[in-house]
């Protein structure tokens, strides 16, 4: 979930509380429980009650704000989590570190509810679809103020290079996200490691810099809600947050394609209640449960049964569900090699120093 990350205080509090609770969890590790680690506000509370009633398994929910915080909590090892939900690249990292164990989907009765296209897209970070199960997905796109920009204009990344919007465009202050529009406009893969393609994209971004208002991360949603800019490059999750604050805001994914993010569940190797964890994941795929979660979170659900049951209006709402023809051009980030990561870092400095 690419929401805005409030720094320091809540994080420190969460780590502190998490650390305190750790000892209590260790004591009753053998009882019929399930320790779940998830983003904050990312699971409908009634779903937890329902699961506990139906199975008699007691759920202990731990929450976190950012994938990096999750990584710290997870590797600290004071709590042995049974099932964890996190973002694509973090799943890939933990798989490569050997922390994830394969899930036995053959025992699931609702796994076939999942949209095969999203499972296909997950193969970028989980090539055999054996380690992870998609939960929600979304995109990187343009959050725009409808009083300043029309919907048609935001159908192409070109709008971010339009001089009439000088000083009212916000880009992401993170290198890979900001390179996405440039790479897609040039028709390149967003996971490219080709130096010439990256250099071309850099030239385009240098050309854009004079009309950019700022490169922001956490501030974007608030700046857009305050009407300080016309457009911003943001994740759909953050866009949803900003749209709650200001009714004039809308979200769109340009036709050239973009980054697709997938938040997935996985079962850690150190899991102590494997059977309960698999029961829980199967439960999450059930139509009524997935629907309850969708209504609570309001991100695109990979559950085909849920999508089929939705009103036409919601189903075709491009701010929630990216249309198929756009989704075709969207790709999940792949972890890049060290050389390319360093190259990106250097190109980023070059752009910023212009």
């Amino acid at each position, binding site marked *: 979930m690419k929401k805005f990350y409030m720094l320091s205080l809540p994080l420190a509090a969460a780590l502190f509380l998490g650390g305190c609770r750790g000892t209590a969890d260790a004591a009753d590790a053998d009882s019929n429980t399930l320790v779940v680690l998830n983003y904050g506000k990312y699971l409908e509370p009634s779903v937890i009650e329902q699961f506990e009633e139906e199975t008699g398994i007691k759920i202990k929910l731990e929450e976190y704000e950012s994938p990096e915080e999750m990584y710290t909590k997870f590797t600290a090892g004071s709590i042995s989590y049974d099932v964890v939900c996190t973002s694509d690249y973090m799943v890939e990292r933990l798989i490569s570190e050997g922390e994830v164990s394969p899930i036995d989907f053959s025992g699931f009765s609702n796994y076939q509810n999942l949209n095969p296209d999203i499972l296909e897209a997950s193969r970028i970070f989980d090539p055999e679809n054996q380690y992870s199960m998609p939960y929600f997905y979304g995109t990187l796109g343009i959050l725009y103020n409808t009083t300043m920009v029309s919907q048609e204009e935001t159908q192409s990344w070109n709008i971010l290079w339009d001089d009439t919007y000088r000083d009212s465009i916000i880009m992401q202050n993170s290198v890979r996200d900001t390179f996405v529009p440039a790479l897609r406009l040039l028709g390149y893969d967003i996971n490219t490691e080709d130096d010439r393609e990256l250099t071309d994209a850099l030239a385009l971004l240098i050309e854009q810099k004079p009309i950019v208002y700022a490169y922001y991360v956490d501030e974007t949603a608030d700046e857009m809600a305050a009407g300080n800019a016309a457009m911003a490059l943001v994740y759909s999750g953050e866009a949803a947050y900003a749209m709650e604050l200001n009714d004039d805001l809308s979200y769109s994914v340009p036709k050239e394609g973009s980054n697709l993010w997938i938040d997935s569940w996985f079962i850690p190797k150190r899991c102590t209640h494997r059977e309960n964890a698999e029961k829980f994941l199967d439960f999450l795929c059930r139509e009524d449960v997935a629907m309850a979660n969708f209504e609570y979170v309001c991100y695109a659900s990979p559950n085909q049964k849920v999508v089929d049951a939705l009103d036409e209006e919601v189903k075709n709402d491009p701010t929630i569900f990216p249309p198929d023809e756009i989704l075709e051009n969207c790709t999940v980030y792949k972890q890049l090699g060290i050389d390319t990561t360093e190259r990106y870092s250097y190109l980023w400095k*070059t752009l910023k120093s212009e």
Partner: protein
Amino acid sequence: MYKLKKQFLAGPYFIWMIGFILLPLAFILYYALTTADGAFTFSNIAAIADPVHVKSIVLSLKLGAICTLVCLVLAYPLCMILSSFRFRHQSFVVFLFILPMWMNFMLRILAWRLLLSNNGIVNSILAAVGIGHIKMLNTQTAVVFGMVYDFLPFMILPIYNSMVRIKPETLEAARDLGAGSFTVLVKIIFPLTLSGIISGVIMVFVPALTSFVISDLLGGGKVLLIGNVIEQEFMQGTNWHLGSGLSVVLMLFVIASMALMNVFDKDGGGTAVW
């Protein structure tokens, strides 16, 4: 016995010095002179010659110099006024200039961001009086503005201190001997406050040169100072070796600027003020 006791009292500071000054410096030097495999190299230091890094250090020096100059021009007349008029509550007025330092500097910079933004208070006022909308935030000017705002007290205090130390008799003697106001300023007040000026210049220039938070918050990620490059290497690029190498170069610039100032500071009173 007495001497030993005295040394013992310095113990806490000694531990502090080793743990938080010498050890970190040693780590930075170690990282600066090694590659990721631990092999010895000068390449992290030599990386300063890279055009991108040269550009950002030149920009840092430029903005730091502008900031220092603006602070000096603002602070010097102010200190003259504060020290020459003997009015009631004089120390309270000086206190007012220091008061903002009691608030967290990040908060003050964030407040400026709200004031200067496109739909911010300053622009609303400008629009109301018919001047129209001016782009202020996320420019080099905004960054200099933030630096001046934050560092001005560091310029005021040493200059003010050196000014109040000038005895009124000295000025009276000068006037008795026929010096005009301008001559008094150039021949008497200026030389006597030089140590304060130098101290103030260092206190402002060094933090301005190394700052990265102000340029991030008021520059909107568009102004890349050498501090931002180092921050990026540590936080995003995760190349601690290059970040440390550039830090060492920056430290050399700081030492050089302080040494340069000490050449002018003949009586050595500059740093003694603080």
